[in-house]
Structures are given as structure tokens and as C-alpha cells.
């Protein structure tokens, strides 16, 4: 899993990655075997456990994908996740900037935030339904309640981690306060925000499923309860499987896309450059500039002292 973020660079890495993936697949196979043993081999012939067996679940999963119910439910759930995370990002980053940037705000809100953070988001469920009614809104609200804290805390941590010399240099070049925020603070906290977003995504996915068991008629969480009510245990297990697989893929995608270095550039450049620049011994570094600097560098007419 972690290896996914470190692909590239050298055959050795690829081999070790392949070995890791192979091992994980093997362990997964063992787990499915254990699942099969626990539901099909060990229980008595008439036991209800047989309904939960992988022999039932996988065909049910295929069927649910084929008839579109799985796609519809997954899409609904993912849309709620996206809306919730976007709202959490919209609230968490500005609040985190305030908390990280203003010591007074940080000291004043510390206790409240810790308390709210440690309050299970699901305990807000009845209130969310009262306030937002039935449908997707309360589910999204619960995702916000879960996801906003890691975003606030990591954004604030990002502000603290800003290099003071960046700010000093920018101010000495004439940057106004709003320019400091736009050119230094926002790009500077970006890696921390991405880390926070990854944490938030994990928490939000976990909260999403139980949140969908309240007051909605669609989504993966709803499907779990619906399958139980219809005694369709194969579908129930298929949905659980789908929740796990989707969550795994989301986390994997987040690891690749939300790597603090960003997917944009970096690795390849970094490697080639490290080779090229060599140790910092400087004669190359400080090669005197070409003669006739003035005419090129200064477009303004030369001033006489």
C-alpha cells in the first residue's frame, strides 16, 4: 500500500514493490479462504452463516454491478463524500489559517476544538436530521463534522511550519499582507492541507456508511440495511465488500494524488538534478558573471553616482 507512493526510480524498487503486492495478494487470498471456512465449512449445514459465504457474496456483487444498483449506490455515496469534503475544505482551511496565524485565536479555541474533535460525528446524527431534514444534506453535514478537524489542525500546523525568512524576504520586496497570504501562506501550507485532506478522506469514508443508515433511501450504507431487511445476506456481504474495495481505492488514489510533493513535478526532476548538480562545492556555483552585465540586466539608463 505505502509502496504505491514510491513507485518509479530503479529496477530494485520495482522488484520490491512487486514482492510487496504479491505478498498482499497472498494474504488477501488467505483471508477469503478463512471467510469461506468460517461461513461454509465450519457451520452446520442448515446454518444461516452459509448465506454470508464468499460463494454467495461474489456472484451477488457481480449481479449488483450488472444490474446497476451497485453503481447507483456507489455514485450517490461518492457524491455525498465529495460534497462533504469540499465543504469541510472550504471551512477547515480558512479556520485553520486563522487559528495558525493568530495566536490569540489559537489559545482561545484550543479547548473547544479538542472537545468537538473528540465528539463522535455520528452523535450529531439526530440533530443533523432535525436541522437539515431527510436526504443527502444531513449525511453531508455529518461528513463535514468528521472531516473538518484534521483539515483545521493540519492547516494551522502548516501556518506554524512556514519559514519566517520567506515572509521576511517577501516583505522586504514590498509584499502587502494580502500578497503574503496569496504568494507565501497559501502555497506554503498546501502540503499540510493535502495531508489533512487525506486524513479527512479516511475519516469521512468511515463516517459516511453509518451516516447513510439514517434517513436516506440510497447509498452504500442504506444498501447494507436494506439488504438486511430483505434478508438478502449475499447482497449485504457484497455491499460490505464494495465499501471495503472503494475505500481502499480512494485511499490509494489519495496517496498518489495528494502526496505533499504533489503529482505535478518533483521526483523525476529531483533525481536528474541531484545527479547533475553534484556536491555544493561552488566554483561552478559562483562563476563570475559574463562581462558586460550592465547592458543586459538593466534596461534603465545607467545612472551616474
Amino acid at each position, binding site marked *: 500500500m505505502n509502496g504505491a507512493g514510491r513507485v518509479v526510480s530503479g529496477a530494485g524498487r520495482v522488484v520490491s514493490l512487486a514482492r510487496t503486492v504479491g505478498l498482499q495478494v497472498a494474504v488477501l487470498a488467505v483471508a477469503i479462504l478463512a471467510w469461506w471456512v468460517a461461513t461454509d465449512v465450519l457451520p452446520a449445514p442448515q446454518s444461516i452463516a452459509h448465506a454470508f459465504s464468499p460463494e454467495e457474496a461474489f456472484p451477488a456483487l457481480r449481479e449488483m454491478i450488472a444490474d446497476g444498483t451497485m453503481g447507483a449506490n456507489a455514485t450517490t455515496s461518492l457524491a455525498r463524500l465529495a460534497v462533504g469534503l469540499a465543504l469541510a475544505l472550504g471551512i477547515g482551511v480558512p479556520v485553520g489559517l486563522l487559528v495558525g496565524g493568530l495566536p490569540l485565536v489559537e489559545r482561545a479555541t484550543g479547548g473547544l476544538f479538542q472537545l468537538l474533535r473528540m465528539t463522535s460525528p455520528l452523535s450529531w446524527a439526530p440533530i443533523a436530521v432535525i436541522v437539515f431534514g431527510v436526504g443527502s444534506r444531513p449525511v453531508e453535514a455529518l461528513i463535514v463534522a468528521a472531516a473538518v478537524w484534521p483539515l483545521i489542525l493540519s492547516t494551522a500546523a502548516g501556518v506554524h511550519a512556514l519559514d519566517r525568512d520567506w515572509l521576511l524576504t517577501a516583505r522586504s520586496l*514590498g*509584499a502587502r499582507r494580502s500578497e503574503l497570504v496569496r504568494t507565501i501562506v497559501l*502555497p506554503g501550507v498546501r502540503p499540510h492541507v493535502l495531508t489533512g485532506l487525506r486524513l479527512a478522506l479516511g475519516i469521512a469514508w468511515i463516517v459516511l456508511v453509518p451516516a447513510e443508515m439514517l434517513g436516506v433511501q440510497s447509498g452504500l450504507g442504506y444498501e447494507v440495511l436494506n439488504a438486511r431487511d430483505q434478508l438478502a445476506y449475499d447482497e449485504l456481504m457484497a455491499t460490505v465488500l464494495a465499501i471495503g474495495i472503494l475505500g481502499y481505492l480512494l485511499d490509494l488514489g489519495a496517496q498518489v494524488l495528494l502526496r505533499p510533493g504533489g503529482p505535478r513535478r518533483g521526483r523525476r*526532476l529531483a533525481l536528474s538534478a541531484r545527479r547533475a548538480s553534484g556536491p555544493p562545492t561552488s566554483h561552478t*556555483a559562483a562563476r563570475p558573471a559574463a562581462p558586460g552585465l*550592465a547592458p543586459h540586466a*538593466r534596461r534603465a539608463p545607467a545612472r551616474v*553616482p
Partner: protein
Amino acid sequence: MVAVREARYRYEGATADVFAAVDLELRAGETFALVGPSGCGKSTLLRALAGVEPLTEGTIEHAEEGRRPSLVIQRPALLPWLDVRANVRFGQRLAANRDAAGRIDVDALLADFGIAHVAERLPRELSGGQQQLVAIARAMAIDPDVLLLDEPFAALDPAARWAMQDWLRGLAVELGPAIVIVTHDPDEALYLGHRVGLLRHGVPGIGPIWEPRRVSRGELPTLPERAELLSLYETTVRAGRELALAI
């Protein structure tokens, strides 16, 4: 031309001035080396000149409208998410320096500094000396009337430091703006400064101010100003130490 008049600085709540009665006129093209032991206030004076630290008293006059000083500190402090070209262009994108973009061409500047071949690299891919060159190029890109260098080479290894000193001395006049370099190294001051001024604890103003002959690095010990500077430097360091012990 930039002129400092009757500058005084005192930390809030402190009982003594960091510096006082500082008068200084800086002429385009000249390098003024401000030398003094740690804690004598030379960095504070430089930050006041840079406009990031308000003076307790006194004024700083800029003769030319629309031009400002720019500061380079000991650490290059480049923005790690921007490549070299974007770092150098940073100041030009600020509202305060809109005009500078028309006067200074960043790519020509990179070429003149010998760093055009690393324009697309990220700062972390450069050596310490190269990073400091980029930092100086960034400061030059806003077409400053005075370039303020605060111990700019102190963090470099000796070979890189000497190379950078030679480089700066070689083009200081061509660069255009007045340069103020703050250093605690008397030899660096004498090597780079057209004028060298000493800033001392508890002594008002900058002084004495020498105008040393331009000599090679090896000939520095033959400068008569050097003996005088070292002797005063030692006295002020000892005074500073006694002051520290007394407190």
C-alpha cells in the same frame, strides 16, 4: 541615492539604544561594508533600511521615486515550490514593483548571474552558493536603489564564500544600485567595501569609516586600515563581553 538621517533604534521596553545618531549616505554603484561584532545592531540597521523594521527615530530618504531597497539574508529563503526563474521573478509580481518588470528582464539577469542553465530547477536541487546567487538575483529583479546583504555568504563553505566574494566584487559597480553588506568578518568588509564602517556597542553613529585601497585577498594584511579596524574591533568585542558579564 539613499540617505539615513539621525537613525535611532531601541527595542520596546529596553533601557538602551541598539544604535543611535546613525547618518549615512549611499551612492549608486558603491559598496558600503558595515562591520561589527554580533549583536551590535548592524542587522537591525539593515532591516530598518529594508523597511521591515521601523526606526525608533530618524528618517530614511530615497531620492528616486518608485524604487525601493531589497534585502538578502544569510539563508537564501527561496520558495521551494517555485523554480529558479519564478523565484527570481517573485518580487516583480508584487504590486509594489510593477514598474521594475519593464526595466529588468529576468532571463537576462539569470544569464548575467551565470544561473540561466538552472532556471527550471527547484531550489533544493541547487548548491548553497547557487541558491544564494538566486536570492541575490531575486533581490536585483525589482531594480532596487539599494541592495542590502545581511551576512550573505556566512553560511557557505570557504571555497564557495571566496568565489561569491570575488563574484560580487567583480560586478558590484556594474550592478547599479548602492550595496550595503553587513558582515562580522573584517576581512570580508575590507575586501568588498569601497567604504567600510564600524558599528560599535554604545558608540553613537557609524565610525570610523575607512576607504581602503582595492587589493587582492592576499594583500589584505598590508592594508593600514586593517590593523586599526582589528584593534577597534577587539576593543568593542571585549567591551561587549564585559557588558554581557556585568548583566
